[in-house]
């Protein structure tokens, strides 16, 4: 075919220029592919973290409002438990009355992150129009600490608290909530028959750290729970350490600083929408039903995750995207300018072809063909560069970390000559997430489209120049 013969010969003649243009496009396209792959990798890492937090099948979570913190200047709290350090030594204040804490063991199960929601609201949420099902849960923290007898003395060391997350699971709705995402690796999961039993399923990471196995005992709020199963979450996000039946959690837990019992209360409602398209509607309906509570979707939860996974997401999405766009614009501009220059050098050739009876459209098609061929070459090299870039990122990128902060539920007041200071110890859960950049089919499609666009854009400029070329002028210019 003459078109291809002419195209091949012309590209061979200006091989260097063609390679230069193709490499420019390849660089831009390679960057786009790499950034897209990195971005997809980060999104997957985020999704894995969120999945372990959120549970499989959960579209919306509802959490009670964060409880008000006790003011240090107002003296011991009238309700709940406060641990106080001062000149008189360590004191535990319960419902406004304080006594020495020396030698005592504190083991409290509290809900300090979220305020309580009446369990009746779970049924109300489940009855909403776009809701498929809803389950209540309790996100709790067990804080255990043994106070040394000489604590508060001149040479005493502060006690080391043992804190872990406990999740009260509605055993009649095991398909929702954090436990739903896990895989039981040993023993069994919770069942409906466990509703009022002191049994627990333990996260594999926590079990490993604390050498727990099926049959081991775990102390929660001074009660002994038997481990019936070990569960592993699909990704090492920030899963609860221990899962216990909701009814037991309600019986043992108190509501943070207030110290109120959580019987017939939950602090989290896991909601599944009838379809993914209904998530926004469900969110709106629940906000209307429970105006004081926090309604969270996976999208909004993602913004609460910090750490390098979040920074990398920002880097990939913002800097990476803009860098790719800039390089692409530069590559397209260079390709267009060089094509225009090539057309200028070939004015006599095109004028002659017009004199021979070639239509402008035919000559333009020839130039477009050359540009698109260069674009396709650039696209192919760009995809290869993208694969290489992704492989490099996967092999050299450090593990990303996702950090989710949560309060321990304890309130510590420090006394001294400078007055009282108080704080609520915060536990941050930092998890390592492997960064895996993988080139998707979508990224390759984008690369091919960009390559074609680059070629067509550059060729169009050349074609526009050719269309304006009058044969007499073209021939006179070189005659």
């Amino acid at each position, binding site marked *: 075919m*003459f078109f291809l*013969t*002419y195209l091949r*010969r*012309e590209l*061979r*003649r200006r091989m260097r220029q063609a390679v230069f243009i193709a490499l420019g496009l390849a660089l831009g396209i390679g960057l786009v592919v790499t950034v897209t792959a990195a971005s997809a990798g980060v999104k997957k890492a985020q999704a894995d973290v969120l999945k372990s937090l959120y549970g499989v099948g959960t579209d919306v979570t509802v959490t009670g409002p964060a409880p008000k913190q006790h003011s240090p200047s107002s003296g011991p709290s009238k309700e709940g438990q406060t641990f106080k350090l001062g000149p008189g030594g360590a004191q535990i204040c319960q419902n406004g009355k304080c006594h020495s804490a020396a030698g005592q063991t504190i083991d409290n199960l509290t809900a300090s992150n979220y305020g309580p929601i009446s369990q009746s609201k779970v049924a109300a949420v489940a009855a909403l129009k776009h809701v498929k099902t809803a389950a209540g849960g309790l996100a709790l923290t067990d804080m255990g600490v043994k106070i040394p007898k000489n604590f508060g003395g001149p040479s005493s060391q502060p006690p080391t608290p043992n804190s872990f997350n406990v999740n009260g699971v509605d055993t009649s709705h095991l398909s929702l909530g954090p436990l739903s995402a896990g895989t039981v690796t040993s023993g069994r999961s919770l069942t409906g028959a466990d509703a009022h039993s002191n049994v627990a399923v333990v996260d594999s990471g926590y079990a490993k750290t604390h050498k727990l196995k099926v049959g081991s005992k775990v102390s929660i709020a001074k009660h002994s729970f038997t481990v019936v199963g070990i569960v592993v979450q699909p990704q090492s996000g920030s899963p609860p350490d221990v899962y216990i039946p909701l009814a037991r959690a309600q019986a043992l837990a108190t509501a943070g600083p207030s110290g109120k019992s959580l019987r017939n209360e939950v602090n989290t409602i896991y909601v599944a929408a009838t379809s993914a398209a209904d998530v926004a509607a469900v969110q709106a309906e629940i906000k209307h039903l429970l105006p004081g509570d926090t309604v969270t979707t996976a999208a909004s939860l993602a913004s609460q995750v910090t750490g390098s996974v979040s920074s990398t997401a920002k880097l990939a999405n913002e800097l990476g995207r803009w860098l790719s766009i800039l390089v692409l614009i530069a590559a397209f501009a260079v390709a267009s300018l060089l094509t225009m220059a090539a057309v200028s050098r070939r004015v*006599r*050739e095109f*004028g*002659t*072809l*017009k*004199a*021979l*009876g*070639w*239509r402008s459209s*035919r000559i333009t098609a020839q130039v477009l063909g050359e540009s698109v061929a260069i674009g396709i070459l650039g696209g192919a090299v760009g995809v290869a560069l993208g694969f290489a870039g992704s492989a490099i990122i996967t092999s050299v990128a450090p593990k990303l970390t996702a950090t989710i902060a949560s309060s321990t539920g304890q309130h510590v007041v420090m006394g001294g000559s400078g007055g009282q200071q108080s704080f609520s110890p915060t536990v941050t859960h930092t998890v390592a997430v492997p960064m895996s950049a993988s080139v998707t089919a979508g990224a390759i499609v984008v690369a091919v489209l960009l390559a074609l666009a680059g070629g067509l854009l550059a060729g169009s400029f050349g074609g526009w120049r050719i269309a304006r070329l*009058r*044969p*007499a002028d073209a*021939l*006179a210019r*070189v*005659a």
Partner: protein
Amino acid sequence: MYQLTNVSKLYAKGGRTVPAVRDLTLAIADGDWLAVQGRTGHGKSTLLNLLGGLDRPTSGSVELDGRDLARLREGQVTRLRAESIGFIFQTFNLVPTLSAAENVETALIPLHVGAAERRRRVEAALDAVGLGDRARHLPGEMSGGQQQRTAIARALVKEPKVLLADEPTGNLDEDTRDEIINLLEKLWRERGLTLVLVTHDSAIARRAGRVGVMSKGLLTIQSGTRPDPATDPVSS
């Protein structure tokens, strides 16, 4: 065949209008050989461009077989050029990346001739100009004379009615010049072509049936004195 009536072509140059061709009326019959002489810048090439439909007159009409090129749409003029008019340029104007055969083939592309027929006609055209054995050579691998022969083959492969040659020997040495002019004359005679040839060379012009001299855009036709090419080789 050609009928030019009151043709003028004006160019704007530096804020003023320059007439390249002025009020030209001319008839060129089928099979005529008209040589056009004149000094550089006096309108010879402009006349050739008007005859070839590469440019349009500012006023007047340029009729080829009764069709006014000035009134035809661009696509129609392009089609007419593709079918009926062959061009030969001083600088050969071959596509440097294409072989001799492929360069000749470019003239058949707009006519949508099938590949096999193209090959046959290209081969015949190259044989006619004595380049049958150079079909695969690139322009850069051929001498000036061979390149011009290739250009002649390209002009003739589509079997045009008209051959327009703009200084076809201007870039050639004397021997090659004679060779090319003899070839053109032979083809003109054998094929019954209408040949309009622009040249500075009086010896070449004398070979034509009619000689016109362009001066300041005005054409003066003189009758030709055709010597016998066998006994009177071209000399300047």
